[in-house]
């Protein structure tokens, strides 16, 4: 099976090469896209197969440096993460085949490389391969963003993204180095056998949370995420949000919970819990405020990633407290939620792409009433939005239910400080989830309901058959996932075993899931059945009691007079705008958390000038992280600028000083070099 996966990776590399020649052969671009879709389907299928059957030994690839050959392995955790990757890749590439038919190689080549990078990260069986895949993923996704470089907004987004990608690499590479230590064996088996201890453990934790957390979009390393998702094409946003953040979460789970985790103390899970809870609140709140559909969805991604990270951190802490079943519950919640999020967020981003294509608008203020123009896209987006809003019995609810159950049971750890932290995390998760739900209602309601906000909206068209099929398939999958959390978590047992040392709960059954035998059950199939019975019963009853057909009339609107004839959609000012709908939360929470401000400049009495109203907010990460960084960069640049004015003598002195310092270092610690590069040293010495 691992060999088949290696072949699929090779196929992706060949497809990216084929993409380079795309301008010469008109059929090549479509071949690349459909090829990527087929390979993604293969990933999903092999991932499922890998969960059902046990994978074999690591496969050594015939490439890489002699002291650390690249290796692949399909264990439970890898197999589980291959499934969302494959599903999202399949949907996104099919969508790209239908909508992004312009054959510019720079827009085409990054896709297969991006997919290959993500798959390589997930399949890696040693630290070097993991880093290689992670960096390939970063660079390919940057290329995807930078392909739209003609627009200033996209250039800006790509630059910010590259900065954070470099920061991630700068954290992850030393983290892997610290985990490997002086032994020099990068394979996961060796890393697992010698988990970091003491100060090295703390440093590894910090570096991995910063490096992979920046890629996952954890607060405060999330500022790249909304602009990047807004700048990418629809399929690219779907891949970024639904697949790449999952790969970053995989790196977190692999390095912290599997390789570094087994014998760690309670505080090992705390950074993930704290950052996850903060991300849930901040992401949810920003999602209720954004006026751009894709930025809104990206902020909702921050919220859901936060919930998943909270689950992973909780699992690590519970495992440290020897509460194996509860740790499996928390990890199961995290794994289920990330799979569900991958499906419904891919659906929502592709629907946003369809809205952009059909209605020509990305801002919510340019939409309205789209359900009449594109009903199928509307209903599919509603399924995705309802799943993201955690409404039962859809996919989002099951994951959040499991997470809340784990949080409600985590007081068993016993330490008062941890209990209070869990309580705060629970409040934050509940607030974040509820804010996310409000954001999803706002997104769907403003885009699809109400009156058109621009004439262009009326010209919107229903999606073509292929995108329609992709959207409907994803909506069906979101519903199916929500109905079958038990079997899915049963299937994920090998992954749970890897990250918690406990293979799931016996209470994960076909019909219901539960935290423990005495705790409450959640049986989504029964809930769906009851809802259907109640709804159909009501419909049948009302048909008998009140059989009158409904009649159409102008809206009542509190008795306002009908709009004049030159306003065919009514007065646009009387329909809530995106900022207007956000206003209650803008004032209630935004003022404290987002430094939200409102400016009302009313004209003096008697002056016919219009009143101006402006509301704005600022992400705290922008003010406290990016702005100081930019100031620091300017200061460093100013200092370095002074270096350019040095005279010739000073330049020579500088170069000589550096050389002497390096030689002195080598002279002082002659033993340092062989121990840093143990496998490399003999070969170098032999060559000399």
């Amino acid at each position, binding site marked *: 099976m691992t060999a088949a996966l290696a072949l699929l990776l090779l196929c992706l590399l060949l497809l990216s090469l084929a993409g380079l020649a795309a301008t010469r052969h008109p059929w090549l671009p479509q071949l690349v896209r459909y090829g990527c879709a087929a390979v993604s389907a293969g990933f999903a299928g092999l991932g499922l197969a890998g969960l059902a059957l046990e994978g074999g030994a690591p496969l050594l690839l015939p490439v890489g440096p002699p002291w650390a050959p690249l290796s692949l392995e399909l264990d439970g955790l890898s197999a589980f993460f291959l499934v969302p990757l494959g599903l999202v890749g399949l949907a996104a590439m099919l969508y790209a085949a239908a909508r992004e038919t312009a054959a510019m190689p720079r827009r085409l080549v990054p896709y297969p490389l991006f997919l290959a990078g993500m798959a390589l990260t997930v399949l890696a069986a040693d630290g070097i391969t993991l880093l290689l895949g992670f960096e390939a993923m970063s660079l390919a996704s940057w290329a995807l963003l930078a392909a739209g470089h003609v627009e200033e907004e996209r250039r800006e987004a790509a630059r910010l993204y590259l900065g954070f990608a470099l920061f991630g690499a700068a954290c992850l590479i030393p983290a892997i180095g610290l985990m490997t230590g002086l032994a020099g064996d990068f394979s996961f088996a060796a890393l697992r056998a010698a988990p970091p201890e003491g100060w090295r453990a703390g440093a590894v934790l910090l570096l991995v949370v910063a490096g992979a957390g920046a890629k996952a979009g954890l607060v405060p390393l999330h500022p790249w995420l909304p602009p990047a998702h807004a700048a990418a094409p629809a399929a690219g946003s779907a891949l970024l949000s639904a697949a790449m953040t999952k790969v970053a979460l995989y790196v977190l789970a692999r390095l912290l919970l599997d390789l570094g985790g087994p014998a760690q103390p309670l505080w090992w899970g705390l950074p993930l819990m704290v950052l996850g809870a903060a991300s849930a609140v901040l992401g*949810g709140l920003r999602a*209720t405020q954004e006026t751009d559909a894709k930025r809104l969805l990206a902020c909702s991604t921050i919220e859901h990633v936060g919930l998943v990270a909270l689950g992973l951190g909780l699992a690590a802490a519970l495992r440290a407290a020897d509460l194996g079943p509860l740790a499996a519950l928390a990890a199961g919640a995290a794994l289920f939620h990330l799979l569900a999020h991958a499906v419904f967020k891919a659906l929502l981003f592709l629907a946003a792409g369809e809205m952009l294509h059909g209605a020509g608008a990305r801002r919510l203020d340019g939409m*309205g009433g789209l359900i009449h123009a594109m009903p199928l896209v509307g209903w599919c987006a509603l399924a995705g939005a309802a799943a993201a*809003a955690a*409404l*039962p019995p859809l996919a989002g609810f099951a994951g959040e*239910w499991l997470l809340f*159950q784990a949080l*409600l049971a985590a*007081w068993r750890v*016993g330490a*008062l400080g941890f*209990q*209070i932290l869990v*309580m705060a995390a*629970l*409040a934050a*998760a*509940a*607030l974040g*989830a*509820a804010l996310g*739900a*409000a954001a999803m*209602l706002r997104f*769907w*309601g*403003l885009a699809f*309901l*109400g*009156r058109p906000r621009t004439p262009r909206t009326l010209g919107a068209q229903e999606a073509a058959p292929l995108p329609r099929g992709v959207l409907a398939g994803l909506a069906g999958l979101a519903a199916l996932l929500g109905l079958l959390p038990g079997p899915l978590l049963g299937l994920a047992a090998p992954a749970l075993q890897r990250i918690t040392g406990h293979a799931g709960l016996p209470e994960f059954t076909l019909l219901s899931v539960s935290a*423990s035998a005495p*705790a*409450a*059950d*959640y049986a989504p199939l029964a*809930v769906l059945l*009851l809802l259907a019975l*109640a709804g159909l019963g*009501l419909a049948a009853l*009302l048909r008998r009691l*009140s059989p*009158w*057909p*409904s009649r*159409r*009339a102008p*809206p*009542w*609107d*509190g008795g306002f007079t009908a709009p004049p004839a030159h306003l065919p959609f009514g007065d646009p000012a*009387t*329909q*809530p705008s995106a900022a*207007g*709908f956000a206003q*209650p*939360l803008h004032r*209630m*929470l935004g003022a404290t958390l987002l430094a939200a401000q409102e400016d009302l400049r009313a004209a003096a009495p008697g002056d016919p000038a219009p009143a101006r109203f402006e509301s704005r907010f600022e992400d705290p990460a922008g003010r406290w992280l990016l702005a100081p960084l930019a100031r620091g960069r300017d200061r460093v640049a100013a200092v370095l600028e002074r270096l350019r004015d040095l005279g010739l003598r000073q330049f020579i002195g500088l170069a000589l000083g550096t050389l002497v310092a390096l030689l002195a270092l080598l002279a002082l610690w002659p033993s340092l070099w062989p121990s840093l590069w143990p496998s490399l040293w003999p070969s170098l010495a032999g060559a000399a």
Partner: protein
Amino acid sequence: MIALSGLPAQILHLVLMLALAPLVAGGVRWLKARLTGHRGASPLQPWRDLARLLRKQPVLAENASPVSSAAPYLALAATLVAAALVPGFAHGMALAPLSDLILIAGLLALARCALVLQGMDAGTAFGGLGAARAASFAALAEPALMVALISLALLAGSTSPEVIGGVLQEGGQGLRVSLGLAAAALMAVALAENARLPVDNPATHLELTMVHEAMLLESSGRHLALWEMQGALQLTLWLALLAAIFLPFGTAPAGAGPLAWLLGLAAWGAKLAVLGGALAAFECAIAKMRVFRVPEFLGAALLLAMLAAVYLFLSTGQA
């Protein structure tokens, strides 16, 4: 077998919930009128309103989508399922194994989402205003609800109201401070969720101050009847839920037979009457808050719930 023996009680419970819901809403309204020195409409008035609405032809806005005609059914169905999961005059009914407070909150959220979308469907000013406010209040009420759940889950080891009621009935002496605080928090959440004073005024006629009613301005005929029923059922559900958790005495086992049921019914009726009376008295004594004061109200509920949980952490830690 258990499910079968609990089936008659379950059906009776659902029928009673549906029959009593308008009476509870009407009774609270009547009592409020009496307490403020008015004569007040009969408690049966909501039932008469429902019958009248069912006789009328529904009018939909010209640009209304299928959401307007489907949302009331979905909302009432979700509330109905949630109502079936709350213990009433009996415990251990057919659907008791499904009963879970997070699921009930989720089903009520489903109903609320349907209502919010209904408010936005016609694209009117008041509907959108009410929808935005309702969605915001719900987001603020959720943390208080979940944190209040910690205390209950810690005491009972489960989030099922059945189990919690059973454990609290057996008695946990010395833990009453926490329970009192959690009850206060849950009551504040209940007021916000049901759009009662001081969060929203159910009797207002001024559209600008409406939250819940503003979303229903475009509904008429059977759709409005469904929404009215949903609101009344949700209020009854919350009263029954508070009774099942904090006043768990006197409920009959579901399979116990008609005589025990009668006792259970009497106790349940008394509990609903007490809680409804308390609601009416509270609403008479308090004024509606400004919209932007509501976060303080729900924030206070969150603090109470946190205090309850911390008390419990401390007391269980020492034991």
